[in-house]
């Protein structure tokens, strides 16, 4: 089945809530039925066809084109299929998604992958704040799946994260993994200030050093070679991330915390001076 191409007709300034841009909603629909799906434009309900050109019948593969910076909630709660986005995307992309893939050839705004439970979200540009985080009032953020960001990511990535993997190839903003419950965050660039504040369990891996040191509520444990990281980093290399043999076999300094809470979280800082055996 060929992909359904959805193209923005003209630039927009009002926010668009487009939960219907999802393979779950598109699958099995004819082209005119896809165009009739509802979207919220500002405070008015419109149809998809009012703002977007739709090519092809509904399928589990969607290609989105245009300046989508004001289009929010694309792929929200999706469970299957694939969305390819060519351009920048608005907030809540892939929030609460449970399966499938979203590939973005551009930047994404805040709350991408928020409370995500499964699937793959790959961003070839930068990500805004609250990547994979929990919405206010919620106890758990990301709870499964994988988020890969080729650029930088904003503050509070992985807030209250419960499970899953967030990988940022560039730099990661402040408060990464704040109140993290479990899961893993890997950053190839620098790790921002106050990482892991209030974290109970989980792992934050800093491959490119620290912006501003660690909180005093993290205690130094040891320098060692975590075998599980060999497993993880090899998998990341399989996803095309620039993992070096030195990183796979390298020495990491382990800090545990946050001792203001359970204290079973860890921050692993790659020692770029230590050479592997």
């Amino acid at each position: 089945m060929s992909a359904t191409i959805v193209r923005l007709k003209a630039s927009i300034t009002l926010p668009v809530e487009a939960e219907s841009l999802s393979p779950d909603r598109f699958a099995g629909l004819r082209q005119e039925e896809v165009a009739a799906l509802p979207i919220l434009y500002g405070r008015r309900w419109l149809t998809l066809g009012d703002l977007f050109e739709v090519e092809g019948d509904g399928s589990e593969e969607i290609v989105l084109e245009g300046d989508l910076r004001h289009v929010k909630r694309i792929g929200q709660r999706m469970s299957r299929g694939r969305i390819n986005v060519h351009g920048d995307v608005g907030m809540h992309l892939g929030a609460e998604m449970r399966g499938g893939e979203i590939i973005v050839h551009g930047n994404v705004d805040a709350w991408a992958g928020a409370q995500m439970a499964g699937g793959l979200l790959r961003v070839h540009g930068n990500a805004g704040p609250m990547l994979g985080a929990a919405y206010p009032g919620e106890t758990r953020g990301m709870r499964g799946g994988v988020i890969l960001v080729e650029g930088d990511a904003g503050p509070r990535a992985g807030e209250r994260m419960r499970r899953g993997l967030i990988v940022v190839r560039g730099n990661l903003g402040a408060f990464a993994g704040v109140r993290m419950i479990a899961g893993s965050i890997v950053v190839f660039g620098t790790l921002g200030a106050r990482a892991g504040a209030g974290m109970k369990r989980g792992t934050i891996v800093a491959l490119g050093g620290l912006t501003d040191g660690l909180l005093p509520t993290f205690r130094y444990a040891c320098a060692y070679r975590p075998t599980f990281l060999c497993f993880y980093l090899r998998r990341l290399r399989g996803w095309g991330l620039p993992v070096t043999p030195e990183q796979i076999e390298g020495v990491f300094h382990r800090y545990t915390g946050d001792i203001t809470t359970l204290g079973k979280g860890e921050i692993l800082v790659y020692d770029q001076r230590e050479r592997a055996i």
Partner: protein
Amino acid sequence: MRINGVEIEDTFAEAFKMWGTRLIITAINRQWAQTAAQATTGFATSGIGCGCEAGIERELPPEETPDGRPGISVLFFVTSRKQMEKQLLLRVGQGVMTCPTTACYSGLSAEEHVDVGGKLRYFGDGFQSSKRLEGRRLWRIPVMEGEFLIDERFGIQKAVGGGNFLILGKSVETALAAAEAAVAAMREVEGVVMPFPGGIVRSGSKVGSRYKFLTASTNTAYCPTLRGQVESALPEGVNAVLEIVVNGLTEDAVREAMRVGIEAACRSGIMRISAGNYGGTLGQYQIPLRELWQ
């Protein structure tokens, strides 16, 4: 039927249904992976006497292991799922976890599993932690040298145990040389192990004994020293017999291993290739020797 002038007896090997699994043991270098593999598969020659049958399948280069370190794949065979979990817990816990720098992974994609890492984790005394990636859950157990990493679940599948053949030689030297050649050839076959020491058995057994407390005893018909005392199965000129037992993850793998093993064993000084069976009354598989080439 003859191969290189050696008679292939018109008989069959009797093999049994078992459960099998593959473990991948890695370590900082090849030596320590080998040490752990040997410790874990040691004293695992027969299910009755040792609780399981196990052996080293092959060495794995770093690029073939989950963590990119040198590794060894080992196969385990038991008669029940419950026994598999019990044996793996004991053997991985004592043979792999204790060995410096090792990690242990499931090497079999199967529908059925046994819980190993999920139980060994309690050794971590509350400080164990798990990592889950793409549906695979690994446990990190803190140990004095760092961490022991192990898969939570290990895939198991129905397998075949007890494939065998007997090498009847003119002397112990010729029989042993033929058996060594056979084992070397069989080790190239994927999915099989020869669980006895060096892959070779000299104390083949028959069912039953004159002693009530024994269920199996020496295979008198194949003992050359008893030729004048019992009904012997040995042709004239045979003075030594060695057996090779092979277990495999599939019947095809067992058959292939037997075929290449017998071909390698058919050499000067060997008079006949035979096989052990119980008249077809015990095992679920019958592997006729001569059909191996059909």
